């Protein structure tokens, strides 16, 4: 065996070109496969990093009649679940929040969560130092402690070993650090696919929950996520059945809150499904794509080995004539292919390490659990098995064909093509056909996604995002108190944002600036129901529940969203003036079809009760695609910040030049107003828009990359086969030239053969693509799965490249010297 390895290595070193191309072919395929295996292993296959994660479920509510699914839970509802929901043995609530950290140094906004003390034990998570919350660390007055992440501990506190027990000032309040969670702990896991929130940021501070008193009375104020651990042996279905009973009971107890026509309900979703459900289809498509790349690479390798075996026919015949048995010849040939596959596999693993690093960088806001992705033992084992399998299986085809050379023909100088030669040609041709067919499938997939992406980029979002910078400002309750609900601001909040607007407007280069509670395409959303004047509330029928934003007067000027009728908000719209609202065209069409919506009135209170506060529609603006460029604009309404002050706002500033140049001046102005007020999440609006299509971009990028690799491999395969064909037919071409064939005749002969293979490959590929494109349907936007233009363009591209790959050897064939070709046989 050692001898065979030595001979094989010597042979491979002697033909560096062949060896390099073969290894690169395997490396590309194995690299792509191990990267995607790793990704799928970490994201889909591996259990979530919590204790017994299969029993973890998330609980969301729904209003199916309004198309609202997976919406959060209110505080009183959670407390009811805590008491009544017996299918779970532990239950906890959580909500995202942000903390302004101002312990010396630059004020910084840190992503955080408020959680039930039970959360950590529910997840089976232990701190790396200190402790987590105890049952009594809950409720107003008992929540002055925090647990921080190892990341924050390292970054902000230089891993201070004495941090535990110290006090931090967050949102103007003091909190004692009681524990540090290890780096590996993450909860909530980013990218929960929940209505109204994408939750892309990692949490670095956990604080015990303390429901404000006003929230405990508001069953409609839904903002909390709920996680539970199913009792052993309890299924999701039986938990679901119990929820149904609980909800039915609520509807009986609180008929005003749960109208029967709204389709209210609560559902549990396995946590794993919730985390990875959104990316599963995309990842499976990717797995299919790299599987195709692997098949193409294998076909290429087999083609190359066949050509090599053909070229060695005489050598193999001499070996057999000298007494080598078929097994010996087979072993020799297999040794070579296995060496190529193993070296290629090793190179592929290195490629995948690099690829995964790249993926972690570009997919950070797109793929959940990306931090957990690594090349672990199972991936290396799978890769090794696939490499060896590739080497043996695809080395076997040429080896079997060549292991029994026909001695009389092969040993005869210039002997004509043997049966093995014909068989080899058939196999080689079939392999090229397969390569082209598979490459076409990938190219069609990539083409469809690319076209979708281009269509999406060309969608009019209803605003102009260029030259706008956005940043988040969250005013802490302690410093900016409010008389009402804690999420609402008061006079001080209004003053802060009014003054900020005035100061920023004076900065050189600023064209317009405004604040909004919700920025389009940022992944967050908010909705609220209202009643319309003159329309009687029917029992059991919900009023309109539409998307709501709080804005400052210049918001539409910053966004350059056109005013259709009426007016924008202005400085005369104050807390004490008539209450006003601006709606978009979609809402006007939906609620006032065929009528003039301008001047109509709505209310958030019950119109049947006395003292109703009516809000007048003073403007109608163009539609904005808020949830996604690929989603139709929804009905929206806007209320002025002065009449409903939110304490967390996104500041958007339009500039005449690069808006990023304004950031430091804006930050200076904000801090001159409040030195402890951080400015967070600074992004240009273009970036916000680009981030909103990041998952699609990643799909296009990856599938495009794999399709390009497939195209390259198919081109190399075609080139190899046609090159070999030319070498094999040199004699024939010489004869033809001696008989009068001209360059064009030879070109036609060689390219014609390639054309036949390419044609069959394309025809097969089109049929396969028609079946497989259906799987992509969910990822397409305004492009049919059988889009003829894409099919034609892709077919043309593949055909052109394959023909180019065959044209080069064909051109070489035309330079064949008939004298040399003919003298080979004399």
């Amino acid at each position, binding site marked *: 065996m050692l001898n065979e390895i030595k001979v094989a290595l010597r042979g491979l070193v002697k033909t560096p070109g062949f060896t390099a191309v073969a290894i690169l072919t395997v490396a590309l395929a194995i690299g792509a496969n191990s990267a995607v295996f790793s990704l799928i292993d970490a994201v889909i296959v591996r259990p979530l990093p919590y204790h017994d994660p299969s029993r973890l479920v998330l609980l969301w509510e729904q209003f199916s009649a309004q198309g609202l699914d997976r919406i959060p839970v209110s505080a009183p509802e959670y407390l009811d679940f805590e008491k009544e929901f017996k299918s779970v043995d532990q239950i906890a609530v959580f909500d995202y929040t942000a903390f302004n950290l101002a312990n010396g140094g630059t004020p910084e906004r840190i992503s955080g969560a408020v959680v039930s003390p039970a959360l950590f034990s529910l997840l089976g998570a232990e701190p790396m130092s200190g402790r987590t919350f105890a049952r009594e660390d809950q409720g107003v007055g008992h929540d002055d402690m925090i647990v921080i992440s190892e990341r924050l501990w390292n970054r902000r506190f230089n891993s201070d070993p004495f941090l535990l027990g110290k006090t931090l000032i967050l949102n103007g309040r003091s909190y004692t650090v009681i524990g540090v969670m290890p780096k590996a702990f993450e909860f909530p896991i980013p990218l929960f696919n929940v209505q109204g929130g994408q939750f892309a940021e990692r949490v670095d501070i956990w604080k015990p929950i303390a429901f404000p008193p006003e929230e405990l009375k508001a069953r409609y104020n839904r903002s909390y996520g709920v996680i539970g651990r199913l009792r052993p042996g309890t299924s999701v279905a039986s938990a679901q059945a119990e929820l149904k009973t609980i909800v039915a009971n609520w509807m009986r107890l609180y008929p005003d809150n749960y109208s029967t026509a709204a389709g209210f309900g609560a559902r549990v979703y396995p946590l794993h499904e919730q985390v990875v459900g959104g990316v599963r289809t995309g990842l499976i498509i990717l797995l299919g794509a790299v599987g195709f790349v692997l098949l193409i690479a294998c076909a290429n390798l087999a083609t190359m080995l066949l050509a090599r075996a053909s070229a060695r026919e005489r050598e193999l015949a001499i070996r057999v004539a000298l007494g080598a048995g078929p097994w010996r010849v087979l072993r020799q040939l297999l040794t070579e292919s296995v060496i190529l596959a193993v070296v290629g596999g090793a190179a592929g693993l290195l490629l995948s390490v690099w690829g995964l690093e790249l993926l972690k960088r570009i997919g950070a806001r797109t793929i959940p659990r990306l931090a957990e992705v690594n090349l672990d033992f199972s991936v290396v084992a799978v890769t090794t098995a696939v490499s060896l399998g590739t080497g043996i299986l695809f080395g076997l085809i040429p080896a079997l064909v060549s292991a029994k050379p026909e001695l009389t023909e092969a040993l005869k100088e*210039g002997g*004509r*093509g043997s049966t093995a030669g014909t068989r080899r040609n058939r196999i080689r041709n079939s392999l090229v056909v397969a390569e082209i067919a598979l490459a076409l499938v990938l190219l069609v997939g990539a083409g469809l996604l690319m076209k979708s992406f281009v269509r999406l980029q060309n969608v009019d979002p209803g605003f102009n995002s260029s030259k706008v910078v956005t940043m988040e400002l969250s005013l802490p309750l302690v410093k900016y108190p409010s008389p009402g609900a804690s999420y609402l601001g008061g006079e001080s909040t209004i003053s802060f944002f009014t003054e900020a607007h005035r100061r920023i407007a004076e900065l050189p280069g600023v064209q317009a600036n405004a604040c909004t509670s919700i920025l389009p395409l940022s992944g967050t959303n908010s909705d609220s129901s209202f009643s319309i004047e003159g329309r009687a509330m029917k029992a059991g029928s919900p009023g309109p529940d539409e998307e709501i934003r709080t804005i400052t007067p210049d918001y539409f000027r910053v966004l350059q969203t056109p005013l259709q009728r009426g007016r924008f908000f202005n400085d005369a719209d104050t807390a004490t003036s008539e209450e006003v609202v601006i709606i978009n065209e979609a809402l006007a069409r939906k609620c006032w079809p065929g009528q003039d919506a301008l001047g109509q009135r709505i209310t958030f209170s019950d119109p049947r009760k006395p003292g109703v506060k009516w809000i007048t529609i003073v403007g109608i603006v163009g539609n904005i695609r808020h949830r996604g460029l690929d989603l139709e604009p929804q009905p929206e309404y806007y209320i002025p910040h002065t009449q409903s002050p939110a304490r967390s706002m996104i500041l958007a500033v339009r500039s005449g030049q690069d808006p990023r140049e304004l950031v430091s001046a804006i930050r200076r102005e904000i801090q001159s107003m409040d030195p402890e007020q951080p400015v967070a999440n600074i992004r240009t609006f273009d970036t916000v828009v680009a981030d909103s299509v990041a998952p699609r971009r990643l799909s296009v990028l990856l599938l495009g990359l794999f399709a390009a690799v497939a195209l390259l491999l198919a081109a190399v395969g075609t080139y190899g086969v046609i090159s070999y064909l030319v070498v094999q037919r040199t*004699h*024939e071409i010489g*004869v*033809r030239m*001696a*008989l*009068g*064939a*001209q360059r064009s*005749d030879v070109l036609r002969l060689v390219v014609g053969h390639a054309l036949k293979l390419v044609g069959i490959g394309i025809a097969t590929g089109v049929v396969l693509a028609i079946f497989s494109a259906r799987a992509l349907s969910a990822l397409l936007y305004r492009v049919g799965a059988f889009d003829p233009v894409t099919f034609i363009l892709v077919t043309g591209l593949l055909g052109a490249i394959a023909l180019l790959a065959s044209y080069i050897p064909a051109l070489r064939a035309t330079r064949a*010297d*008939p*004298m040399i070709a*003919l*003298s080979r*046989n*004399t």
Partner: protein
Amino acid sequence: MIQLRHIERSHPLAKGNFFYVLRDINLDVAEGDFISIMGPSGAGKSSLLHILGMHDHGWTGEYTLGDAPVHNLKAKERAALRNEQIGFVFQNYHLLDDLTVYENLDIPLSYRRVGKSERAALVADTLDRFHIVGKKDLYPRQLSGGQQQLVGVARAIISRPKLILADEPTGNLHSEQGEEIMELFKKLNSEGTTIIQVTHSEKNAGYGNRVVQLRDGFVV
């Protein structure tokens, strides 16, 4: 018909030296000649034939075919002239393995851009003339050596060349088949076709009207 003046063919050797395959070849061939080129192996017989057939362009001297100064022609013009005037017969037949007898005869005509119906007529005539109509759908491997060479000769004359160049046409045939082929050449020659053959066989040379002896690249 052919005039060769001072034709030389050499291959470069190390240190700026040359190995001469043909030296100062001067030869006149009249229309209707049947010339046999003879000589020991390595004398330059096949090389001379390839120069005459315009397969080889690396020679010096003057070569005139009819009125055409081949030495002054470009490769494309030489190819056109060759297609118009010359037919080849090879020792190893060089039939195209994947084509039937019919297709092997058709191919030189298609390379000369002869129309389809005319080609069909010419192939039918030739099949008939060589008594191989019954074999038209067979592949070369289904024919004996003699039959293959018969097709080779038929293919060489199908485009009605004025000159046939034959490189050891009977070299791979047994004597009876060889005689048949030589008789065929004689007949073609008597019908006006000029033939130049390379042969080792005195007997085959006897079919021609003139022998050119080559030795070490020189005409002797």
